[in-house]
């Protein structure tokens, strides 16, 4: 397994661990090792001998995310991301008879799929049983043969070369071992199969990050990071190549969502299953700072969500390959002469 310390280290990050919610059925994260008593980086130091830093407690995440996500049916941001991802299927001439959809926002993908991509068999997978059940019970007018499965992206239970398409909308940024998950996805794809993923990028919620840090400094006199490690755009390309995908493509989209107040933003994050318990603790201070620093003229506050879309293909003989170094038959001078002297 590869070390991912360097990837996550870039954002100077922290840990998000899910805690079982007390009264409400939505997701809370308690960053246990990052309270001021525990000391920063306590747990990751223990784990540094193994090659994987366990940043996310996937077990807790399974239970809690499902209920909230299933209730929020009309989340425009999540829908927009799913729509953008599925749109790319129309750009391909190829059709994908079998498709695997990895968790994250499963509902919108299933709902917005329609007839794109020529998909005949759809397999939905998520780590949470409740999520899969609610996905199965949702009333969607899809005539595609859909199967459901509970599984972990880090331990993909799919045979090699068995699916034509893998889609993951806003799910992979929760994995502890992103390169490993991507490699397993690549193995599961048939030759000339497509991998489409949307993950949150490093610029996401930068305003919130700043507000949280300031609030924490004020209240507790230290800095404890609060938002989970997110990939940078420059890392996305590396990830795809390391996983062995051919013809990798990365593009970024920034969505600025306007909220009436910072508290609304925090509620929305809870709804998407992406919050942190420490955030809850200093909520009032954070909200106050956020509102004062970032409010626009009409009183609303913006929140940036940077989504990185990654596409990669499983190698196939029909893909263009880079030629071997030194095998060139035409030099740049010749091309220059051919096309006139404009530099």
């Amino acid at each position, binding site marked *: 397994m590869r070390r991912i310390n360097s990837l996550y280290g870039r954002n100077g990050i922290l840990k998000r661990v899910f805690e079982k919610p007390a009264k409400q059925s939505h997701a809370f994260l308690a960053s246990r090792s990052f309270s001021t008593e525990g000391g920063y980086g306590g747990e990751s130091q223990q784990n540094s001998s193994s090659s994987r830093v366990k940043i996310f407690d996937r077990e807790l995440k399974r239970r809690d995310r499902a209920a909230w996500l299933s209730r929020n049916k009309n989340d425009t941001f999540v829908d927009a991301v799913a729509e953008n991802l599925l749109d790319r299927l129309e750009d391909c001439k190829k059709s994908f008879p*079998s498709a695997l959809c990895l968790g994250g926002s499963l509902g919108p993908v299933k709902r917005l799929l329609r007839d794109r991509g020529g998909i005949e068999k759809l397999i939905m997978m998520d780590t949470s*049983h409740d999520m899969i059940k609610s996905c199965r019970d949702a009333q969607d007018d899809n005539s595609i043969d*859909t199967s459901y*499965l*509970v599984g972990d992206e880090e331990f993909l239970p*799919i045979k*090699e070369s*068995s699916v034509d398409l893998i889609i993951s909308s806003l799910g992979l940024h929760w994995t502890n071992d992103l390169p490993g998950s991507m490699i397993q996805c690549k193995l599961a794809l048939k030759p000339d199969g497509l991998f489409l993923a949307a993950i949150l990028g490093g610029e996401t919620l930068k305003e919130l990050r700043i507000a949280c840090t300031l609030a924490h400094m004020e209240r507790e006199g230290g800095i404890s990071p609060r938002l989970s490690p997110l990939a940078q755009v420059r890392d996305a390309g590396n990830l795809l190549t390391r996983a062995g995908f051919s013809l990798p493509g990365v593009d970024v989209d920034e969505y600025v969502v306007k909220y009436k107040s910072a508290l609304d933003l925090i509620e929305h994050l809870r709804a998407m299953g992406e919050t942190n318990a420490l955030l809850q603790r200093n909520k009032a201070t954070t909200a106050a700072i956020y509102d004062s620093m970032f409010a626009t003229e009409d009183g609303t506050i913006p929140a940036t969500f940077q989504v990185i879309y990654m596409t990669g293909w499983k190698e196939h003989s029909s893909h263009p390959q880079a030629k071997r170094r030194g095998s060139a038959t035409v030099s740049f001078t010749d091309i220059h002469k051919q096309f006139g002297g404009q530099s």
Partner: protein
Amino acid sequence: MVRLSRVMLKEAGNAIDKTLSEILVCPLSKQPLRVCEKTKSLVSDTIGVSFPIKDGIPCLVPKDGKILEEDGDASKAS
């Protein structure tokens, strides 16, 4: 249809539907799985772990796996 897999379950009497049985492998060893009708689970013989099928949905998360043999090695990979 969404209900299609359930219909197939009832008719075929199999624990999981055909699409899945063709592509599923053990998440840990990547070896084929054996359907065990009695316990409604998928068994990975190479490592001796069984994964449950809850409500017709196979749960192939490593933490859900149950070790079958009784030998000392009870470490579940996670």
